[in-house]
């Protein structure tokens, strides 16, 4: 932690950045903080409750954040994958941000804690993560940490759904999507949902009904998952943000599954690697096409 704080103090003190976006202790647990003065650097912490994906603050649709100036952002490996996405898609220039990589041994499901990391408490996203430290980083801080405990309630949910006939899966998803009130928290917390005008908001014609009934909700969530395919780092923030408790990340995991199996692509933190959607191979599998 001291390493992080010292680095922040230095970056702010010599004017390299105007703010350091990191984690602090808030009233209800760990939450994002924008440290703008070197003397406030001691507010920065990092522990297994540092769940939030801070790269979302680099989303270009946040003018009040952009106005601060050049930022340094604390990133775990999963967060760095989202940053790579923004760089790959020209939403950010590499020299516009300082990425402070932090070594991570997994996070818990809720930033409210407790901070004890075990099979019960570990976040589902950590189960598929083999990267302890981001490669996309200007600095790396923090002690070496072991791999996270293996658990994935998401894997279990997916396996359970895979084993069910279509009608049951349909009933499951319609019951979940019925609760969606289209608050758009899933979209707003996502670092990679940066469209100036989201397809959902397009009228004339309105392809995706904006009303929170099941029919409109289904079109919205299928489309969002499709638009994130091959880009989403499955960080799970959408599921965490959803006030209706819908396991949205499962849809993203499904799209990621297809992309990995068919195109051999897993979202990584190298912005130089081209995304799978928008590219193709002549020999892409087409067994589903007659």
């Amino acid at each position, binding site marked *: 932690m001291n390493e992080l704080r010292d680095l922040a103090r230095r970056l702010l003190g010599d004017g390299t950045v105007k703010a350091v976006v990191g984690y602090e202790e808030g009233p209800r647990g760990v939450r994002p903080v924008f440290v703008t003065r070197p003397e406030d650097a001691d507010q920065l912490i990092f522990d297994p409750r540092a769940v939030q994906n801070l790269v979302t603050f680099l989303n270009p649709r946040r003018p009040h954040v952009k106005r601060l100036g050049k930022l340094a952002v604390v990133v775990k490996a999963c967060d760095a994958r989202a940053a790579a996405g923004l760089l790959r898609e020209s939403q950010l220039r590499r020299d516009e941000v300082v990425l402070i990589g932090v070594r991570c041994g997994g996070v818990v499901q809720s930033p409210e804690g407790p901070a004890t990391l075990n099979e019960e408490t570990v976040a589902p996203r950590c189960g598929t993560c083999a990267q302890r430290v981001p490669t996309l980083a200007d600095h790396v801080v923090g002690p070496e940490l072991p791999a996270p405990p293996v658990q994935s309630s998401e894997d279990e949910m997916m396996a359970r759904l895979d084993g069910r006939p*279509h009608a049951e899966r349909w009933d499951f998803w319609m019951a979940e999507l019925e609760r969606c*009130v289209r608050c758009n928290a899933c979209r707003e917390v996502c670092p990679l949902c940066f469209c100036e005008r989201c397809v959902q908001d397009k009228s004339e014609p309105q*392809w995706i009904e904006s009303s929170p009934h099941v029919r409109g909700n289904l*079109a919205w969530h299928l489309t969002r998952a499709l638009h994130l*395919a091959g880009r989403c780092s499955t960080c799970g923030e959408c599921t965490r943000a959803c006030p209706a408790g819908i396991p949205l990340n499962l849809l993203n995991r499904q799209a990621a599954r*297809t992309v990995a199996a068919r195109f051999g692509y897993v979202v990584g933190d190298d912005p130089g690697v081209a995304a799978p959607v928008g*590219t193709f191979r002549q020999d892409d599998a087409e067994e*589903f096409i007659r």
Partner: protein
Amino acid sequence: MSFEPKITAFVCNWCTYTGADLAGTSRLQMASNVRIIRLPCTGRIDPLFLLKAFERGADGIIVSGCHPADCHYNAGNYHARRRFAIFRELLDFVGLDPARITFSWVSASEGNKWREVVNDTVERVRALGPFTAYRELTPPAAGLGGVR
């Protein structure tokens, strides 16, 4: 009287539409359940079109275009291939039977193939029955609030 499925077909102008036209001028007999929507290229087919078709009452869908390497716009069908590979499995995951959707490459000279695609799709969707599951997604009736 057996159920007559409604099939919406999204086809590319240069290959499949022309192939379907050839089937017609060749007087090939085939099921008449298909409503064709012509697009410049399969690469133009947004998966949202498919969802809209189901919302508006389609029981099944055909998506068809040029064979790989034959796309009039060079690569549209390659992009469509990737896009629909993902979308199809996403639909399967949420419980929408992919058997309701046929994907095919039908060239301008393949009138016979078009007939087979149409007839096979109609019979397959007939066996699956009307897509009531999607139609039952209509919003709640007036007067009763939904409690979430």
